[in-house]
């Protein structure tokens, strides 16, 4: 059974003449415990699909299901206990005036947890930040550290599904490696299902087993990562993306 099922999803902004279709007729399915990647360039609509699932997209139609339950216009708190999201820009996803402790304790109390102190310590530990980071403010953290806090925040409600919106594209190469390792470790520890968006095929290839390629709002091809590696692609755009990204990695 799929954990995430999307059928014929359309997402648009504005009405009538001003209508912009961000996603057109998208369909995908993510199995429980699987890792699915959405790749495409900017404007392809990949982040919009994530936002639609989370309830952040204004107008959409089509069908979306998580764990067999169809999604409507609003999301409930139980949904947010099950599905969480990590945003792209670590410099924008933390409130500038809230310390790490405030961010995590607010999240935990919103979800009704009582043993907040223990949980905060454990969360910080899980994401590789020690207790010394607990009372820092975002401007006292590096990009990688902020992203770890964002991941800790997403893990606080003990979700089953994590949506990742370009989680490492704003980070340095060496930090990216740490965060990617963290994500794979967490996935194994907590049996998470991942839906990851990225423009970087190598990053997606590292984390995901299946990929959907998007161009201008449409999913043009869905394939496994093995197919991708073996260049067994069908759509010309997929081939083009593959070639562009391999061009930059010519090292033996």
């Amino acid at each position: 059974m799929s954990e995430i099922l999307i059928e014929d999803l359309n997402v648009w902004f504005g009405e009538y003449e001003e209508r912009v279709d961000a996603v057109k007729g998208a369909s995908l399915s993510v199995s429980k415990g699987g890792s699915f990647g959405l790749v495409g360039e900017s404007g392809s609509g990949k982040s919009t699909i994530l936002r639609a699932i989370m309830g952040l997209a204004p107008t959409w139609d089509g069908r979306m299901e998580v764990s067999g339950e169809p999604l409507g216009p609003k999301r409930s708190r139980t949904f947010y206990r099950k599905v969480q999201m990590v945003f792209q820009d670590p410099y924008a996803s933390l409130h500038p005036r809230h310390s790490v402790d405030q961010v995590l304790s607010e999240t935990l109390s919103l979800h009704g947890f009582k043993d907040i102190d223990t949980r905060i310590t454990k969360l910080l530990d899980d994401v590789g930040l020690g207790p010394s980071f607990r009372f820092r403010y975002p401007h006292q953290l590096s990009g990688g550290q902020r992203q770890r806090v964002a991941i800790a925040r997403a893990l606080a409600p003990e979700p089953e599904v994590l949506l990742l919106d370009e989680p490492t594209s704003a980070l340095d190469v060496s930090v990216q490696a740490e965060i990617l390792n963290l994500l794979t470790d967490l996935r194994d520890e907590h049996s998470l299902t991942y839906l990851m968006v990225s423009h970087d095929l190598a990053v997606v290839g590292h984390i995901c087993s299946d990929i959907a390629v998007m161009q201008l709002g449409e999913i043009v091809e869905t394939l496994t990562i093995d197919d991708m590696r073996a260049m067994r692609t069908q759509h010309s755009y997929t081939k083009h993306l593959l070639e562009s990204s391999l061009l930059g990695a010519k090292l033996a």
Partner: protein
Amino acid sequence: MSVTKPSSQGLRAWLLADTPTSRRHAKLSVVYQSWLSFKGNHMAMFGLGILLFLVVIAAAAPLLAPQDPFIQDLSERLLPPGSEGYILGSDSLGRDILSRLLYGSRITLYIVTLVAIIAPIAGLFVGTVAGYAGGWADVILMRITDIFLAFPRLVLALAFVAALGAGIENAVLAISLTAWPPYARIARAETLTIRGSDYINAVRLQGAGPLRIITKHIWPLCISSLVVRVTLDMAGIILAAAGLGFLGLGAQPPSPEWGAMISEGRKFILDHWWVATMPGLAIFTVSLAFNLLGDGLRDVLDPKEGKS
């Protein structure tokens, strides 16, 4: 659990520490670092100094004033500054101008404090709710704001006086009612910018409702620009109160309100310049001080400015 705070060098290092050890530590650290930034701005410190001085003299007016500000002595009227017992001179009824200025500072502070509390808070409420809710709430609240913005301050004050009688409280009310709309606009503009940020989305994804988002997430970010705007507006507020006093709509005689003092001194300005000029200088100094303070606060509080 908290670290000990030994010598002053140790205290400074503790406050500047990169890794705070408790909520209190973190907050104190932020406040201290902001204070250090502010301290570096000499003009702003000067402004702060003047204002603290104002508070002190207002509090200690009975102790500092050489004379009773209300006692009239017509044999001592219109004495120039430097006269025996009348350092800044005396007015047309023989009252010591210095004493009247000292007691008048209380009235100035009273007006300024009331307006500074009422107007921004009302504006914050209206602006953030309008900005966050959008739709009809936004339209209605902003049109109400526009209506109040359209009122000229003095005309509204006149209306109040006609309805409720002249006096300081009504003057304050009139000023507050015309002062809050710009704050609503600022708060709304900030809210619109903040509303779409990832950190707001992130907390929505934790199930936070609008009330929590507005009060805990949006207000802290709006407050700095409001504080800056309030201090920069202070000069205008003092002048508005002075203007009302000048027109006889604010503080009533014999109250030593600075604007009223200027009004009384108007007739004598050619031959006895000090009667109007002294209170004028007082207003000027306090307004300037607020401006400098506001400038300094903006440098410290403005989140857009990225100093390293």
